[in-house]
């Protein structure tokens, strides 16, 4: 089993604390290790985790799976940007080939740049997706990591709708879902749009069922 990154002095009042969903992603990438190493191991892929939070998932990938990639992680939450960079430096002190950028999804990253995209979205169904706070000190930053509007899918669909232009020709996206997001319907819809979609891992976590789907462009 690959080691879990060390987390230290994180501000869990303002940053999402790693939970079952984060650990499911770590296990997902442990399962995908051989596949990813074969596909990208010789080169240097560009890897982006959206909503990197504590930085645990990106640190894990950098240390254990794809040490030769370059990472551009994003988070809307300024507290998370600081936390993630601290976690990544703590775990990879002399090879932190990463920048963490404060942004929504991948809106400031050049199209067709990202080879591996990872997203643990705000997947909890809610009346609406919260607005981005305008102040640094605001108790609502954490809500952005959780609340995903209708079916918990509003933010995820925003990403899926533009996925084709975000990732590179040989790119992949790993996205986490809970059962209430109806991942089977998402898979069907994306397959209609010519994506190859595979369920990599699924697990019951308390009263939730979490899964990770992998999206690849279909080769013509």
């Amino acid at each position, binding site marked *: 089993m690959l080691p879990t990154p060390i987390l230290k002095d994180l501000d869990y009042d303002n940053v999402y604390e790693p939970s079952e969903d984060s650990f499911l992603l770590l296990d997902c990438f442990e399962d995908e290790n051989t596949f990813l190493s074969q596909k990208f191991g010789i080169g240097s892929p560009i890897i982006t985790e959206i909503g990197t939070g504590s930085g645990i998932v990106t640190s894990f990938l950098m240390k254990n799976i794809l040490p030769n990639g370059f990472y551009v992680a994003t988070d809307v939450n300024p507290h998370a940007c600081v936390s993630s960079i601290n976690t990544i430096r703590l775990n990879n002190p002399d*090879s932190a080939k990463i920048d963490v950028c*404060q942004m*929504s999804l991948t*809106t400031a990253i*050049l199209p067709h740049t990202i080879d591996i995209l990872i997203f643990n979205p705000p997947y909890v169904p809610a009346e609406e997706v919260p607005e981005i706070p305008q102040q640094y000190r605001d108790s609502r930053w954490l809500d952005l990591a959780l609340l995903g509007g209708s079916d918990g899918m509003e933010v995820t669909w925003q990403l899926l709708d533009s996925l084709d232009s975000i990732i590179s020709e040989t790119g992949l996206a790993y996205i986490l879902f809970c059962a209430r997001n109806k991942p089977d319907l998402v898979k069907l819809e994306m397959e209609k749009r010519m994506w190859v979609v595979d369920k990599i891992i699924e697990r019951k976590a308390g009263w939730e069922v979490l899964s990770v789907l992998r999206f690849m462009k279909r080769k013509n």
Partner: protein
Amino acid sequence: MKFITTNFVKCAVKTCSSSDKAFPLKYEECQVVLDEQQEFNPEFIVHMLDKLNWDALVKVARDLGKTDLPTQKPEGLDPIMEDDAAVLRDLHSLLIQSNIVEGKMVCENCEHIYFIKNSIPNFLLPPHLC
């Protein structure tokens, strides 16, 4: 924000996505610090060089006061060759060790200004530009 990242980021404003002036951003009033702890991995630089937009790289380097880069992208560098290794080491210093700690990034299409603070670039837009 490492220098290499300037090659991957553009203006976040939707209406700028079709403009060729939204990339690269223009870098102003930047404070650059060399992070020498970052280890040199020549193969990594060779692989990244393949992906980089050299014209954009030269332009941003000029913004930051570095004007001695060749106008053509160095091709076919071999880390075993002494001269090539020196070029790769210089590129490592520029791409990975050079860190923009504070500064401004300006879109030359819409003129929106983004800020870099404590090495973290902020691309969030005010609500009226989202």
